[in-house]
């Protein structure tokens, strides 16, 4: 508990400054004072912006090949040209355009898979926490089994055997990443269930589903958003690994993991082919992680660690 107070003290500053604020204003103030959150949010929203407007920003079609312009270096290297700011790949495709379109794939998989995981994990977690008893035992058993599965290996096998596509990647990664939601929402639901206002709701005749949807879920929202943000980063890393190994997104779709795999063959004399997409993955994932950690410090510091 001491640590929670310490985080709040750090975020809030002197007591007199916050005493008159409403909760919403306090949250906003904390967000604006949290450096990690600000950095993460700025980078993430810039990347989302670039991804959405990729067709307008990208100088070339990401699939257009030009054998005459193969393996051009970025503009700051010797031999680089201004037409291709970040150079071209082994088929003469503009690297900047491919990176911009790659952001779309990463974000789509990240957000999609985190949503699938959310639906499974929150449903199981709230049911287990609310109903308890044998339902809780079955869900806890499912959790133990899920944790025992080698996630990456199973994801690779399922995606490749079903037939790799963006949709399949989203579903498989999502179906394998729900445990974090479950653990947090189960505990939180158990605690909320004990509170007086739940008994009041029951006393005025609310049904179980009314209590879950109107009384419990709104109170879990902050924690769910935090996990959602962190799971986006985890899913993006998983997709990159699958695509790198050749069992995820398939050529010629521009996925960052796949671009690293394609650049690998030429990496000793054209290292940026590998370095650039890696930096892109790193920036995207660190921005979601910083934003998630920041949101947790602001809205639910008791869940730290």
């Amino acid at each position, binding site marked *: 508990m*001491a*640590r929670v107070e310490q985080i709040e003290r750090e975020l809030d500053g002197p007591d007199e400054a916050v005493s008159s604020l409403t909760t919403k204003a306090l949250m906003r103030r904390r967000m604006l004072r949290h450096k*990690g959150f600000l950095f993460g949010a700025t980078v993430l929203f810039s990347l989302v912006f670039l991804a959405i407007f990729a067709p307008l920003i990208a100088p070339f079609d990401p699939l257009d090949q030009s054998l005459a312009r193969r393996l051009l270096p970025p503009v700051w290297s010797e031999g680089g040209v201004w037409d291709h700011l970040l150079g071209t790949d082994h088929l003469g495709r503009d690297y900047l355009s491919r990176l911009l379109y790659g952001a779309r794939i990463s974000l789509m998989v990240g957000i999609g898979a985190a949503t699938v995981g959310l639906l499974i994990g929150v449903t199981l977690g709230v049911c287990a926490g609310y109903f308890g008893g044998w339902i809780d035992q079955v869900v806890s*058993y499912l959790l*133990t*089994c899920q*944790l*025992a*599965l*080698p*996630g*990456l*290996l*199973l994801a*690779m*096998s*399922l995606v*490749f*055997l*079903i037939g790799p596509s963006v949709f399949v990647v989203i579903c498989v990664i999502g179906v394998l990443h729900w445990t974090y939601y479950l653990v947090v929402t189960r505990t939180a639901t158990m605690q909320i269930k004990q509170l007086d206002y739940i008994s009041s709701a029951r006393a005025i005749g609310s049904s179980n589903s009314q209590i879950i949807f109107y009384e419990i879920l709104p109170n879990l929202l902050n924690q769910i958003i935090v996990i959602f943000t962190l799971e986006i*980063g985890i899913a993006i*890393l998983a997709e*990159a*690994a699958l695509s*790198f*190994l*050749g*069992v995820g997104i398939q050529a010629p779709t521009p996925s960052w*993991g796949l671009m*690293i795999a394609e650049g*690998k063959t030429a*990496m*000793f004399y054209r*290292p940026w082919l*590998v*370095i650039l997409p*890696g930096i892109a*993955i*790193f920036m995207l*994932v*660190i921005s979601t*992680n*910083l934003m998630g*950690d920041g949101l947790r410090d602001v809205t639910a510091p008791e869940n730290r*660690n």
Partner: protein
Amino acid sequence: MINYALKRGALALLVAFTVSLATFFLLNFSTDPAEVIAGEDAEPEVVEVIREQYGFNRPLIVQYGSWLKGLSQGDFGESYYWRRPVLDLVIEHAPVTIQLALMAVFVTIVVALPLAIFAAMKPNSIVDRMALSTAVAAQAIPNFWLGLLFIILFAVTFPIFPVSGDSSFAHFIMPAIVLGTSSVPAVMRLARTGLLDVLSSDYIRTARSKGYRGTTLLVRHALRNAMLPVVSVMAIQLGHKLGGSVVVESVFALNGLGRLALDSILGSDVPTVQMLVFVFALIFVLLTFLSDILNAWIDPRMRLR
């Protein structure tokens, strides 16, 4: 104690059984093994004959039964792709992965524990903040990319380590560092939090008041108690290392279980993939079981849970 061990053991067995059932159904729903064996553009009649011959036309639950029966008699099935018994393949590839995983765990401990100790000795100091930021950054780096950067840097620019292969001890150093690094953030954070909790407890205050300072206090009094959760997490991490080896073995061309898994997936070789997923899950279950027992032996309060 024996009662507790029996209960845990029964649960572990049940989990292993459930996991094998889930894996069997998931993998066999994802693909039609008869078509894989027949090869592309095979006549439908040929596929039908194969289906008959291998018994794929039986209900899945019957197929699972005969798989389980074979397993209990030491028959791990026959690989379609390699045309050899799966057990031979697993035994042949296991040593490389075991050596890699053990070395990676060693790297994790050697890096994470000192970092955690330094960080916990002076919470909120520059060292602490640097350690935490490094952890945040390390969590966002795709490990296959880190591996490629290592190859570019240490095998080509400064040729210290061999680039790829598994013929000598030196070949394992870079892969172990890459695989080990991926667990450093989790273990470091946990050990730091554990140490901080212990350091604020009454018995440490007593020790302090008796005049113990610095290293003696930390090593003789605090570290022992703080290590309990770390032991369980290390067991889990060792399990994850086996899964993570798929990526690292591919980057560094080590011919272990991870490599076998990737090749089998790319060859749609269901029996081998199935067995590997099962073996990895089994190792995980076993490690968790052992760490539970170890914890209960060290700390009798655990037995009541």
